[in-house]
């Protein structure tokens, strides 16, 4: 951990910090400040936001002054970033619909792909194994209220006319007893 600050990185860092401070200031504008005796909800955040801006400024300025270290941040692992964050978001989006089992298989496969050492066979094995393990652990043993296989994967969700009683049901509408997400 060097105290020597590398030039462009710290300038960027300082600017980001300042931006965060400004952001909090902006979003907290309508909060009443109150007086120092009865501090309103905006009092402390304002102090802190100003502090952030000052700190960010200091970091950026010191970053400009200091000796040049690396030429900049090393290359971002875009594949890893997109896969891992994307897989997490995917998890959230599809969890209730697909159920824990399928979602885990998908998520683990996607995230495993982020590593350059992943092989298809081991990843598939891992994803299935983890899906089984987590399902047993979380749903059976710890009682997490999640479906193992969700409603999207049951035919009844997609073809309501086939399973619902005829007459009142409009074609394509979901029968009332199917759980909505």
């Amino acid at each position, binding site marked *: 951990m060097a105290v020597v600050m590398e030039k462009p990185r710290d300038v960027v860092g300082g600017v980001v910090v300042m931006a965060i401070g400004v952001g909090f200031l902006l979003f907290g504008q309508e909060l009443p400040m109150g007086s120092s*005796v009865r501090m309103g909800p905006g009092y402390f955040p304002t102090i802190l936001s100003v502090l952030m801006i000052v700190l960010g400024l200091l970091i950026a300025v010191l970053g400009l002054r200091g000796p040049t270290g690396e030429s900049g941040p090393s290359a971002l692992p875009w594949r890893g970033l997109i896969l891992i964050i994307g897989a997490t978001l995917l998890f959230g989006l599809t969890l*209730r619909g697909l159920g824990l089992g399928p979602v885990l298989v998908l998520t683990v496969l996607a995230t495993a792909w982020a590593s350059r050492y992943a092989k298809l066979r081991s990843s598939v094995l891992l994803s299935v194994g983890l899906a089984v393990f987590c399902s047993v652990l979380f749903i059976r043993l710890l009682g997490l209220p999640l479906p193992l296989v969700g409603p999207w994967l049951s035919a009844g969700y997609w073809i309501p006319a086939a399973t619902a009683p005829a007459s009142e049901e409009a074609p394509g509408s979901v029968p009332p007893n199917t759980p909505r997400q």
Partner: protein
Amino acid sequence: MELLDNLMLGFGTALSPFNLLYCFIGVLLGTAVGVLPGLGPVATIAMLLPITFGLPPVSSLIMLAGIYYGAQYGGSTTAILINLPGESSSVVTAIDGYQMAKQGRAGPALATAALGSFFAGTVATILLAVAAPPLADVALEFGPAEYFSLMVLGLVASVALASGSLLKAFTMIVLGLLLGLVGTDVESGTPRFTFDLPELADGLNFVALSMGVFGLGEILRNLEHEHTRSVMVRHVSGLMLSKEDFKRIIGPVLRGTALGSVLGILPGGGAMLASFAAYTMEKKLSPNRAQFGKGAIEGVAAPESANNAGAQTSFIPMLTLGIPSNPVMALMIGALIIQGITPGPNVVTDEPALFWGMIVSMWVGNLMLVLLNLPLIGLWVRMLTIPYHLLFPAIIAFCCIGAYSVNNNVFDVYMMAMFGVVGYALIKLDFEPAPLLLGFVLGPMLEENLRRAMLISRGNAMVFVTHPLSLALLLISLALLVIVVLPGIRAKREEAFSE
């Protein structure tokens, strides 16, 4: 004697089969996590927080605590055997420990680490039992001004005693404070920074934040430098210490324990600082100092005792004052809050079973670790061969499930993803994210005490200076800041952390 009564209560609680089981799970997990590089107690505890909902508070704390000090044991194993410290507190152990292993003395090194840690753990437990209740009594005299100043001291100390740029660590704390304020302001009922999202009315989810920043962020960081570990492990035999070895380690163990206990209590302290300081001190004091760096057994004994003592005494400020001295304690406080227990001086008197049960179980855990680890070394070594690319998808899966299970709300999973990006961005910009957690936990408390102090003093900001204790705490913070910023000390600090 009251202490005996309390200890009996503690033993009764800690030795129930249920709690023994969770203690075992904790130390086992902790050792495993300590052995595996890339996964630390912070991330693991964050991942297990959701599970603690369904458990009684004592059992959750026992398990989580076991993870923390268990990780200190595990980290030393890899440090000695393959020069790869699994934990930041084992970095120093690797210096002489690995040299000893190369000389065929891995067994004595491991035995020293285990015994030194056990001794330190016992002493620290006794300290906890003896010192904590009086400390809690003192803390009950604290008013809001004193609490505010104490928290300021804690935050300043954690910055001063941490490695890396002070300015950036401080920024992280302030950011954490700000993030902690998101949600509904308790006093006025006004929503702050919630963007009208109902899910944010209770504030940012602590678990989502910590798992995103420390779990996902760390994984992203590790993926940058991914490489397969080729582990060539030496065969370990002969775990017995010779008489001469034994005599040599007595001094370092005692000194390491003492130093570690003190440093652990300090806000900002903990296992890592303790081990570094103990190694440096031992090097200066030992008659065998020439051997340091070439396989001196004292170089293993001192830091290992210190890091265990530090890990356990860092519970003292958390349990008695409700103030976290390092990120792990911040997570413990989170766990307590989840259980509906407000940490503070009242815990000792309101929840005696919890308090004393925890203290006793720490000692029980240390015993388990000594008995288990030495025979199980082969198992841990084999675990090292698990490739990271099989491990991290599992971690991500656990994080996702964990984040969801807090409120049965997928919103928290999205939050976690967002904080993963934030955490990684911070790491790329060379900000260490650990102080963020401290700030996040302390933010609302800091504000509440500030408000109360100002209310009581009728707007007079001098109240922090006119109360003697508060003044003392603030002066210490100032002194710490000044000391650390002074050029002479600064250079020494860098030198200590650059090893």
